[in-house]
């Protein structure tokens, strides 16, 4: 096939196809690149920058950067991991993340990225912004304190649910998620079964009445680091 070639990721040679992103090629080869705004069922956004890698010496977002023949990608590289650690820490201090009393704890992707990178504390001062909680919907809670502005809900609502319930508003530190047309979440269009409700990586969009559904020790990231599913898929292929 003319449009397929190889690239190297941390020294390992993998197959890639013209038109794929670095994320797609590595995922297929069972190599996990940490990410937050990217989601397999949504169009890539390239905004959180957690998936930053070095590609031919340049720092790029793996979820949007197309592969090139013989590309040299550095993923588990000390410099790259140090950047990621900083980004994760900044996401923590920018919002109000009180994990001990968050229903998402143990199943949260931001937290899991902290665990993966061995983060025990942030060196940045916490901003403790004042943000609202929108509990107006009977079944869904929008907790702005924990929103990391990944935009997954925006894309899911627009591209999958065809509803455009969520959108971004404001700039810089004031940027936030807002609910379209209505000032509050009790939007006629939002349904519990919507994709937008299930894609939030953190505890910002939660289904009500679930509480702490899974006991400590059995939650998604209690024992298995984030990305193990991607990497085990590789082992299945090898054996």
């Amino acid at each position, binding site marked *: 096939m003319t449009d397929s070639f190889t690239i190297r990721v941390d020294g390992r040679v993998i197959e890639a196809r013209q038109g794929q992103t670095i994320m797609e090629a590595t995922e297929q080869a069972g190599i996990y690149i940490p990410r937050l705004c990217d989601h397999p069922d949504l169009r890539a956004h390239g905004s959180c920058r957690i998936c930053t890698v070095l590609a031919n010496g340049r720092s790029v977002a793996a979820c949007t950067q197309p592969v090139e023949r013989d590309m040299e990608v550095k993923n588990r590289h000390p410099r790259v991991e140090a950047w990621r650690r900083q980004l994760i820490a900044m996401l923590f201090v920018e919002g109000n993340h009180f994990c001990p009393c968050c229903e998402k704890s143990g199943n949260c992707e931001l937290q899991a990225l902290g665990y993966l990178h*061995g983060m025990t504390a942030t060196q940045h001062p916490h901003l403790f912004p004042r943000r609202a909680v929108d509990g107006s919907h009977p079944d869904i809670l929008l907790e702005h304190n924990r929103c990391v502005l990944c935009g997954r809900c925006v894309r899911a609502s627009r591209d999958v649910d065809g509803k455009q319930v969520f959108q971004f508003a404001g700039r810089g530190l004031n940027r936030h998620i807002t609910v379209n047309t209505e000032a509050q979440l009790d939007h006629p269009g939002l349904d519990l079964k919507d994709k937008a409700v299930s894609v939030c990586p953190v505890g910002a969009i939660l289904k009500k009445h679930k509480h702490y559904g899974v006991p400590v020790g059995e939650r998604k990231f209690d*024992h298995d680091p984030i990305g193990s599913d991607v990497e085990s898929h590789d082992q299945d292929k090898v054996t």
Partner: protein
Amino acid sequence: MPHTKKPRVATVSLAGCFGCHMSLLDLDERFLQLSDIVEFGRSPINDLRRFNERCRVGLIEGGCCNEENVQTLVEFRESCDLLIAVGECAIMGGIPAMRNTLPLADCLEEAYLDGRSVYNPSGRIPDDPELPLLLDRVYCAHDVVKIDYHLPGCPPQADTIWQALVAVLSDNPVNLPYELVKYD
């Protein structure tokens, strides 16, 4: 027999709930092992309230919500070779820091004047000079002094505290495995 002095370990609960100290007790029989190899310095465990000797390690539970917490923490820094922040309260303020998104006056008014279950005929917010002065917000331990290690969790598991103590007492760096880095 030559007498080698045991290293001293001090502990304190600042703006915390004592849950992290409970986790220390949760070492169960390892706690006896611990008392074989260390001597407790200033700590609620032996009810010693002053530093009478320099300590090798200080375990800090809780952040600083008042003046007295700050003084105590500074004293710990001056009296211990290594300080370990134990638990989310010490690391980032934890539950007490939930008040940091609100002005202090609002918190006091809600607690002593306006709250639905408040019974306070004096209509005053407590202001006795004996009470430590509240800070404008809750500060984590490393906002105030240098902290050498952070043990995450609310509280950290007994295993986390054990591994950290064993490491620092044998002059090794603390490297926690995945299972022990948890924020809840």
